[in-house]
């Protein structure tokens, strides 16, 4: 990394749009700052107290003056607001069709990521250039925040709730990944590097053997005082824990006793349900999305589908966040829904 920086790299498809607004804001605020500062200094010197100016001069109050310096800031402000709101809605909250999905878990004090093919990494994140990527994020403990300054992307990562954020990297390189929400002792060590790679390079990286235990907190960033995260190991894609395969999870945990693949027995059929809207026992309806499935696994009786009795035991504390994500991925893949975790084609 560089010795000195004065402006962050523009490494995502929308970074330049955000920066354009930033420069517009700088231009406008600088104009008003200079205007007022110069006027104040000019008046304060020109009208300084001295012989002949012991008494101030009456200044008539013009209504048009008050009105104009109320309305001009209002008008300028509303334009800036609208510009920012449009970017927020279009860019940060844009629709999420056709995106490669990466799943991330934040915990004190590390990030764990899982790629569509099952490949995992800790603290570092490898992504292909030019492909829109949707991150689904959750925290295992306190609130964290996923922040890649070069992408102008940030989103809080909440415990017990999925949040999503997307970006499209446009420039191969190595960038900072930070946790932006204060999360305790090693908050400032929670992060690493984002590696933006050409598609072929990324595929080669996916195929490369996985190093046991992810790389530690970037070593060029404070060397020698890293948190003890190296002991956390993660089996690679090649040697995946059978329990992490969705089919296995559903069998081993006994889900299949009720959630049968071929008939509707004691419980709704999982296959094909993602993205549909189901009616609840209360008469309300709910869209089957990641958060609903997650809630139904951990606290099944919260929203029971109409026609079923609440007999499922809660799985909170039994499945890890990664395993829950695997189940969701499986349900999505059988639903033919958009973004079924199969990545880009």
């Amino acid at each position: 990394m560089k010795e000195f920086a004065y402006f962050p790299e523009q490494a995502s498809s929308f970074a330049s749009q955000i920066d354009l607004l930033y420069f517009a804001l700088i231009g406008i605020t600088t104009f008003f700052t200079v205007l007022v500062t110069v006027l104040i200094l000019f008046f304060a010197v020109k009208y300084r107290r001295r012989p002949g100016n012991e008494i101030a001069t009456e200044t008539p109050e013009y209504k048009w003056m008050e009105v104009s310096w109320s309305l001009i800031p209002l008008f300028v402000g509303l334009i800036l607001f609208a510009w920012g709101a449009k970017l927020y809605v279009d860019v940060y909250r844009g629709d999420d069709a056709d995106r490669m999905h990466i799943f991330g878990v934040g915990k004190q004090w590390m990030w764990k990521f899982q790629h569509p093919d099952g490949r995992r990494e800790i603290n570092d994140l490898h992504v292909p250039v030019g492909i829109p990527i949707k991150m689904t994020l959750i925290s295992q403990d306190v609130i964290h925040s996923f922040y890649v300054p070069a992408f102008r992307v940030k989103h809080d990562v909440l415990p017990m709730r999925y949040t999503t954020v997307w970006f499209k990297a446009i420039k191969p390189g190595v960038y900072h990944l930070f946790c932006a929400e204060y999360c305790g002792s090693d908050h400032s060590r929670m992060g690493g590097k984002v590696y933006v790679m050409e598609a072929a390079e990324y595929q080669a990286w996916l195929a490369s053997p996985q190093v046991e235990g992810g790389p530690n907190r970037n070593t060029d960033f404070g060397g020698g005082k890293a948190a003890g995260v190296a002991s956390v190991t993660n089996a690679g894609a090649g040697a995946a824990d059978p329990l992490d395969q969705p089919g296995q999870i559903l069998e081993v945990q006994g889900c299949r006793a009720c959630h049968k693949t071929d008939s509707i027995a004691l419980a709704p059929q999982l296959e094909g349900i993602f993205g549909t809207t189901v009616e609840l026992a209360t008469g309300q309806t709910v869209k089957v999305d990641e958060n609903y499935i997650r809630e139904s696994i951990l606290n099944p009786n919260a929203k029971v589908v109409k026609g079923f009795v609440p007999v499922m035991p809660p799985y909170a504390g039994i499945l890890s966040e990664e395993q829950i994500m695997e189940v969701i991925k499986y349900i999505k893949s059988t639903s033919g829904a958009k973004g079924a975790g199969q990545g880009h084609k």
Partner: protein
Amino acid sequence: MSYATGTSTNQSPARNYLNAAHTVKSWLLTVDHKRIAILYLISVTVAFFLGGVAAFIFRLDLLTPEGDLLRSDTYNRLFTMHGVIMVFLFLVPSIPATLGNFLVPVMIGARDLAFPRLNLASWYMYMAGAAFILYAIIAGGVDTGWTFYTPYSTAFSNTHVAMTLVGVFIAGFSSIFTGLNFIVTIHKMRAPGLTWFRLPLFIWAHYATSLIMVLATPVLAVTLFLAALERLAGLGIFDPARGGDPVLYQHLFWFYSHPAVYIMILPSLGVTAELITCFCRKNIFGYKFVAGSSIAIAVLGFLVWGHHMFVTSQSPYAGIVFSVISYLVAVPSAIKVFNFTATIYRGSVSWESPMIYALGFIGLFLIGGLTGLFLANLGTDVHLHDTYFVVAHFHYIMVGGALMGYLGGLHFWWPKITGKLYNEFWARIAAALVFVGFNLTFFPQFIVGYLGNPRRYHFYPPEFQVYHVLSTAGSTVLGLGYLLPLFYLTYSLFKGKAAPANPWGAKGLEWEIPSPPPTENFLKPVTVTEEAYAYPLRKPGAK
């Protein structure tokens, strides 16, 4: 004003509120608003000193990217200590409880506040809250940040969180008591003839501030109480593992803490209006606009809390509403700055130390306010949220703004409060040091913030180091600028020349009574017959 026209005396009377009694008990059990102001002045000065020392230590540590001076846990405790002390024990009470306590009754021609005993109780609540907070610090500290975000604060931190929450909870009552007292006093105890639109703008600002104190502080109290219950009794309110919602905490917390920023800045805006008019010898330009803008800021300030949560999975529709209301706050703020500027036009400007603080205030408030536009903006806030850009922005408002106003006001009314004159030369040096040191400390933080340096980071990438070195260098200058007044103001108490009743030639009831004032404030009934700031003016073109 007609209270003492022609009879204004330059001699200090034999008896005044300071020498009325000398025992410790006469101070600790006083119900004189002026003495309570002094008690507060001493307390908040100690708090400011402690908060400042904490900041200086972690700024030294931030000289190197590896944080060679402190451990991360110590660093986290220090920035929390700095934030908690500065916000709850210094900034919130600073102007209202010291200058406000002293001046609100005097400026409206009253003998005291409406509830003198409540006023004393307010100081005791402050001290009790401070005792809890200081005990928590001595016992090992707190590491949650002054925001106490859940579930970190309620379920994960192993530090003295509950003790601190209780301290802040208790200290909150001191604000509520002060606010209540001011509202009633301003409504009911104005001298005959002192109509609402004849009030000094200092009073308008304190009225607006009091509204926020009374309406917002209880929400903070409830929030912290719930957080303490969750931590101590395991009640599930904010911790999702116990069925709570951590984002609910943020909504409740910022419902107080955003308006709290206006508790800090509005009194400073009021002080600045007094300083500008006095040192320009001129009435304020657009009195009703300046007065009304205080109320507008207070009201709008209640409706913008969600702009702290643009990246917290708040609904985009909510984000849009909070963003546009935040932009509306820019209007009354701009009105204030433009009216101050127009007041200087054709004034008779003298550059004494309080005026230097006032001009510095306008400059820093301007930058602080305008950089708020970057953060209220949905487009740029995603990148800037929780970075040093935010740190720089709110220090420009809360330190650049609020503290410059406080120091300017303290210098302006020091002769009135103590009856002594301080050394003007050193006061100007200090004012200049504070202005330069402040900018050097915080301006680089805007740049490193846009580069992406998150706040509350003990370690940071080496390419950010130059900005941190500049910041630390600035904080040294700033620290010097803050220490100087401690010396020359204290010196003036013992060796300073006796102050006349009106050393600045200012308008206002407080300048028509002796310095220091007698315990009763006014020795005969007060009637007000003219507008505020009725300085003699000449017609345009006249000689």
